[in-house]
């Protein structure tokens, strides 16, 4: 019994050894195909601190997530990327910021491109915009202030605004309503804000769009004053608004965004990927605690866990 056992174990160990060797060979060849042959070239603009930190963080996130070797190259103004691409022979390029896309001289480029850190959805590349997904913002609104019933938004351009994509449907699914106001210029927008806040009451929220809601400091000040008096929720995707008294804003989680971009790059190497830019899912949350307290929102520990930046401390 014992002998048999030994024999079988010897046999077993031999076949085990063979299996391990085979696995290692396969693994190493697989590994080498990733570590040696999969090359990601990250191009990002050389800009001054502290702005440069954004690109550093995105790049670091991408580097962590990409299954292969990553090379980071910063580009000076008007620098052409073709020599860099030729020198590095990447399998995929992650272009960050508009300067990087332009530097590629796309008519000469044969390497697949993933694009990040831009805010124009018309680029025909797989990529992620700096514009947050409306659903992501509105989920934060519902988490922080579930009592909100109506969300007002003033938009600049007629037609579709990517920031509002899916917003109406999402709010409807939560039993809430999106009311879109449209202004042709800042004067009209100011009048719209005045009018909507005049009739607004607790349960109304105002959503300030990125570069699309005509909000200058005078309008914001007026809006925040009325919001304070009437207990309205004001939110946006600009943390500076939070510093001044908006309840919350989302802003990009650069590292995670970098990881998501690297995932796109990973996928591009193995399968088809939609050639379109998607809104940003990876966001951080800034909350004005003073405003939250004024609105009587209980920023309990559950919420605090979700809040990345609590302002202002004064």
């Amino acid at each position, binding site marked *: 019994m014992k002998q048999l056992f030994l024999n079988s174990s010897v046999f077993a160990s031999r076949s085990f050894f063979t299996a391990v060797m085979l696995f290692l060979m396969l693994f190493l060849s697989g590994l080498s195909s990733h570590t040696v042959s999969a090359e990601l070239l990250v191009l990002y603009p050389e800009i001054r601190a502290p702005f440069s*930190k954004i690109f550093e963080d995105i790049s670091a996130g991408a580097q962590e997530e990409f299954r292969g070797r990553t090379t980071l190259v910063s580009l000076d103004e008007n620098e052409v990327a073709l020599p860099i691409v030729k020198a590095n022979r990447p399998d995929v390029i992650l272009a960050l910021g508009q300067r990087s896309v332009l530097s590629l001289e796309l008519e000469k480029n044969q*390497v697949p491109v993933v694009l990040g850190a831009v805010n124009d959805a*018309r680029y025909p*590349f797989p990529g992620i915009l700096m514009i947050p997904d409306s659903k992501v913002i509105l989920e934060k609104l519902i988490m922080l202030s579930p009592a909100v019933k109506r969300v007002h938004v003033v938009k600049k351009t007629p037609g579709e605004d990517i920031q509002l994509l899916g917003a109406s449907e999402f709010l409807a699914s939560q039993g809430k309503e999106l009311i879109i106001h449209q202004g042709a210029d800042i004067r009209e927008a100011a009048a719209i804000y005045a009018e909507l806040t005049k009739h607004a009451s607790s349960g109304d929220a105002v959503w300030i769009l990125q570069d699309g809601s005509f909000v200058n400091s005078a309008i914001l000040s007026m809006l925040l004053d009325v919001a304070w008096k009437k207990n309205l929720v004001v939110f946006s995707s600009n*943390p500076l608004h939070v510093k001044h008294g908006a309840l919350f804003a989302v802003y990009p989680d650069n590292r995670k965004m970098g990881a998501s971009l690297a995932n796109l790059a990973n996928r591009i190497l193995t399968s088809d990927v939609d050639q379109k830019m998607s809104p940003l899912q990876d966001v951080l949350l800034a909350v004005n605690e003073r405003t939250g307290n004024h609105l009587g929102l*209980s920023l309990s*520990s559950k919420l*605090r866990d979700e809040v990345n*930046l609590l302002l202002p*401390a004064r």
Partner: protein
Amino acid sequence: MKKMIFAPFLMMASLTIIADKSVADSDLELMSLYGGEEFISIATGVTQPIAKAPAVASVVTAEEIEKIGARDIDDVLETIPGLHVARDSTGYNPIYTFRGIYAGLNPQVLMLINGIPITNLFQGDRNVVWGGMPVQSISRIEVIRGPGSALYGADAFAGVINIVTHEANGEEHFEAGARYGTFNTKDFWVSKGGSIGDLKFYGILEGQKTDGFNEKIKADAQSLWDMFSGTNASLAPGSVNTQRENYDARLELVYKNLTLRGGLQSRNNAGDGVGTAQALAPDNRLSSQRFNTDLTYDNKAIIKDLSLKIQASYLHTTQEVEGDLVLYPAGSTGPFFDPETLLPIYPGGFPDGVIGSPEVYERHSRLNISSFYTGIDKHEIGFGTGYYYGDVYKVKESKNFEFPPSTEPPIIIPGGPVVDVSDTQKVFLEEDERINKYLFLQDIWQLANDWELTAGVRYDHYSDFGDTVNPRFALVWSTTRKLTTKLIYGEAFRAPSFVQTRAINNPLLLGNPTLDPEELKSYEIAFDYRPNYDLILNVNAFYYEWDDIIQFVSDPGGSTSTAQNAGEQTGHGMEFEARWSATERLKLIGNFAWQKSKDRNLDTDAANSPEKQLYAQMNWQFAEHWNLNLQANWVMDRNRAGGDARSDIDNYALVDVTLRRKSLWSGIDVALIVKNLFDEDAREPSPNSDFGAFIPDDLPLAGQTIMAEIRYNY
């Protein structure tokens, strides 16, 4: 592997999009999503927002420190409303004066580096050979005016200064810089930050060497002894001695929840100002070697709703003398006079001078555990406990005098060779230790919409003077969207230093082991008004009662004085501050502080602190890469101590200019820094004594100084 070929029309489409835009600025414009440069630093984690502190607090960031051309933390602290940096006669050590609370050695102010006290046991100060602290390692300086013992324990009394060094945040960074200027002053620094895998690091080495400024004093303590004894030993008139050679090194390593820090402050070849005994001694040289390390485990959510921070720290400090320390110069008879006849006890004098070289070695260990619990709605409960062990483990002294003269066969022959009296009964201070255990509890309670109450209390037990309990309350009311009102009440204690409890064999001053801590009660009301986004106005009013002030009181029938809880002072005042971003490139800061404090025992105005202080700063980025910073500081209305016959000390105004050119070449910045532009004759009060002031014309500050700076970073 799949390679994709782009259809030409796609390329054309993308080129069209690109062609729409001005590329040069679009990436930066995109970044404005974050709402400006200030916010981007916060949003990218380069800087942290101020810790929640319902207190009258100020924060100065590294960027602001650079703009004002500061070399030392004192350059920065002088800009804080209600804080004035006066000077001690020994080594020109800083006396951080908050709200009229002034005392030599300045033990009423708690200085922390990264939240850990650097207080020495010997004198309760930051070290007799402090030698300043350079600023390149500093990320920000947080200053709380008023007491903070409920959180920080002992000595968070008149104010708390927390110096936060650059954190290891993983950011790749290298900087090297140097300065050279007046008084043969040379500074250099090299810093490097980055990460290796999950390990983040930041390290810096800083050096400062100076011959010191050479302002003169007309007379000193020896001038007075010369008058009594008919000698001619004084070296006054002569220059003050402020030379020094400093090396500072810091390293921070962060791995996940663990942070390990190490720091070194090496002070060498330091002059002792107007003299250790207020008698000029240009050859005296002191040194101090200070080493600190701390290990912190910080977990924001160890379990649901509960954070945990455990910190162990160690600080080793020394006060050393290079060669002999001459208290009174060669030929002096010393301060030894017959009280009846006023004739010198040693008429032959001391041929090498009166020499007494005291050295003190201390070690401090701390363990602190704190936690925040947020599981109860509308409450944030903080609690913690800690243990401190401080040990003056070595006291050395060599001297050539003894007072009172020995009745037994003397081991010291006055005026004879210097004798090492370390580990004998004749040494100036007993070696001893102190243990402190404490508990604290704090609740931030959202009472109602717009109302928040912070209530905290801390219990401290000391091995040498017993128990103390210090509460603190802060009610914060969001009065309107633009106005916040704070009502603050706090109590504080100041632990007696070892020189006050354990000094022996001193010819003049004796310690008292039965001393109680000094106590302070403070009431404040503060308003923060932000009428628009570009203007911040802060105003506060305060009242305090300072009791059991430790003073040296003359002993009946003898020539000595013994430390007693004798003094009592009250004070009130206001501080006003405005910060205005006039344009994107022009920023103006101003503050005015007024205080009136009374010595209750003598019923006189409290001495030495400025009753009024005015500060103005203009920062103007007048062209791309160019920055001009102008600041002016007026120090006004300092009273003499009761019994001091001198006329009041003159007011002064110092004007500084810093011109900086960034990116002169790739990564290279240059600056020109002028301090005391108009070469104003500025003086800080010298102490009075029973014999009158030893330095009658007060302590002169540096005249005009010019420094050139260059730094390289990538």
